[in-house]
């Protein structure tokens, strides 16, 4: 049985509409027209134990709504969700003890108290034994390099430090299923990289299932074999990231370095020239045309260096979205 199974999940919200300005503000006292937002609109997928899946989509696509439904915060409008055999919304203790949801923009730490106080409380809530607690805390805090910060009040920590503490608080009970919503948001690149390594290590070490959303494609590229792409509440791709590249990357990026400056006109004649800035020219050509361009380049010009690559993953995703909007 799949660890997470979602079938035909829908979550609609009612929101109040109001145009800006003072008159509509007054009118809203009398009647407030509502509008139904289909945050998640009939999605189905399964995730097996130990998988690390990336959940991607533009803002407002329904990623967070899905994660919240999976962790039992939201009552689905319709459809069925099973996580570890439980119906999340019932929020049974046995279920809650095995999951965790980390939201990059939310904190569970007690703001005025040192993180340690939150950890201790979580230890009791999740009924973690003393030995287990000491061990996990030591492991996590050394992995994240925050051993000396756990006694400082949360409000005095920097964003990155706080994020790490959030992670420890969320993992102290070693959840089998981990939902991460933008875990690297607002972190600098070095910290982002560390966070990524940590998530990967956690996934491997505890064989836990991780479902992660991120705006940073680099997170997804480094972490997830499988991605689910969602847009406007619907899944538009669910499968291996590598397959996504194969399927949607119908172009190749050719970049050539010239020994001596070529005529711009001649380059343009080759077609698909993306940009030229001596000594480098970049072509973005459909796969069939790519070979020809390379052959011509090598025949006509003095080439110092030449590379042929798949387009950037961000580029591919962008093209996937633009197709779904077309």
């Amino acid at each position: 049985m799949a660890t997470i199974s979602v079938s035909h999940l829908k979550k609609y919200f009612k929101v109040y509409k109001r145009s800006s300005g003072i008159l509509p503000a007054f009118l809203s006292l009398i009647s407030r027209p509502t509008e139904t937002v289909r945050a998640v609109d009939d999605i189905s997928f399964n995730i097996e134990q130990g998988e690390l899946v990336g959940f991607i989509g533009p803002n407002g696509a329904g990623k967070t709504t899905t994660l919240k439904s999976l962790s039992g915060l939201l009552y689905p409008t319709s459809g069925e969700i099973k996580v570890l055999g439980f119906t999340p919304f019932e929020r049974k203790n046995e279920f809650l003890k095995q999951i965790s949801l980390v939201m990059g923009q939310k904190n569970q730490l007690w703001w005025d108290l040192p993180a340690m106080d939150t950890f201790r409380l979580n230890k009791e809530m999740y009924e973690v034994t003393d030995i287990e607690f000491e061990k996990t805390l030591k492991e996590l805090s050394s992995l994240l390099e925050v051993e000396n910060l756990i006694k400082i009040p949360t409000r005095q920590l920097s964003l990155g430090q706080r994020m790490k503490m959030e992670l420890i608080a969320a993992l102290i009970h070693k959840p089998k299923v981990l939902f991460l919503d933008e875990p690297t948001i607002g972190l600098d690149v070095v910290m982002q990289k560390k966070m990524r390594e940590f998530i990967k290590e956690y996934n491997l070490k505890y064989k836990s299932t991780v479902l992660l959303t991120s705006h940073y494609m680099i997170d997804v590229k480094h972490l997830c074999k499988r991605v689910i792409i969602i847009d406007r509440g619907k899944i538009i791709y669910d499968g291996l990231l590598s397959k996504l590249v194969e399927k949607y990357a119908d172009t190749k990026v050719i970049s050539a370095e010239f020994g001596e400056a070529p005529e711009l006109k001649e380059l343009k004649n080759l077609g698909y020239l993306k940009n030229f800035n001596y000594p480098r020219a970049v072509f973005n050509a459909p796969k069939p045309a790519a070979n020809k361009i390379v052959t011509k380049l090598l025949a006509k010009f003095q080439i110092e260096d030449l590379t042929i690559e798949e387009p950037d993953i961000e580029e591919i995703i962008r093209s996937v979205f633009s197709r779904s909007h077309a």
Partner: protein
Amino acid sequence: MRKYYLIFTNSLSEYFAYRLNFILWRVRIVISILITYFLWDSVFAGKSEVFGYSQARMLTYVILITFLTGVVLSTQTHRVASEINLGELSKFLLKPVNYFAFNLSRDLSDKFLNTTFSIVEIILLVLILRPPLVVQTNPYWLSLFAVAIILATILFFEISLILSFIGFWSKETWAPRFIFFILITFLAGTYFPLDIFPKPIYTLLQLLPFTYIVFFPLKIYLGELNSPTLFMGLIVVFSWIIIFLFTINYLWRAGLKIYTAEGS
């Protein structure tokens, strides 16, 4: 059980991060008691009885309000409304913890601090002002007083929670709470005993929950309720507690279904 103990101690430590706030809050309560105290003290000038109250009974009533405010009226449940609106409720929903027990533990820390302070304040006030007081020694009234305080605490906790649950349906939770507190000031007896109202109004008030938050326990302390009134009062307060319990349960279930975990 230890988790609720830790919620209690964590909430206490949270207070110490805002010591000045807390001290000023206590100052506010003492000032308000002093105003009521001196008001009644001057009303009694030259009279032995006002509204059927002797000076000693009235001043005892006023001073004990401090104590009752500490035990019954201190609460953190107003935070529930903003927790719902800001989506912070999520962090409690995600954990294997009973949210009501959580709130109770958080409230107990609040009550513990405020009550401790109120006792110290009462001792100081009595030492400094040396007012004539009624000291209840009868164990019958004292134990009933304890029971009435517990009932009042439960009742107030429920009402305050219900007011916060409005947050599920509306962002505007302060207005209803504000109105409720105005009602409390006049109808619960935090400024004056309610039986100085004309008889018909007083009878009506006895059917409302407010009476049982402050006035009822204090009347019991003074040993001034006859058995039928006492019995009637206990039935009314019990009924309200049960009614509110069902209301809370209903609102909580209905609220969670439309809870949107906003704010991110």
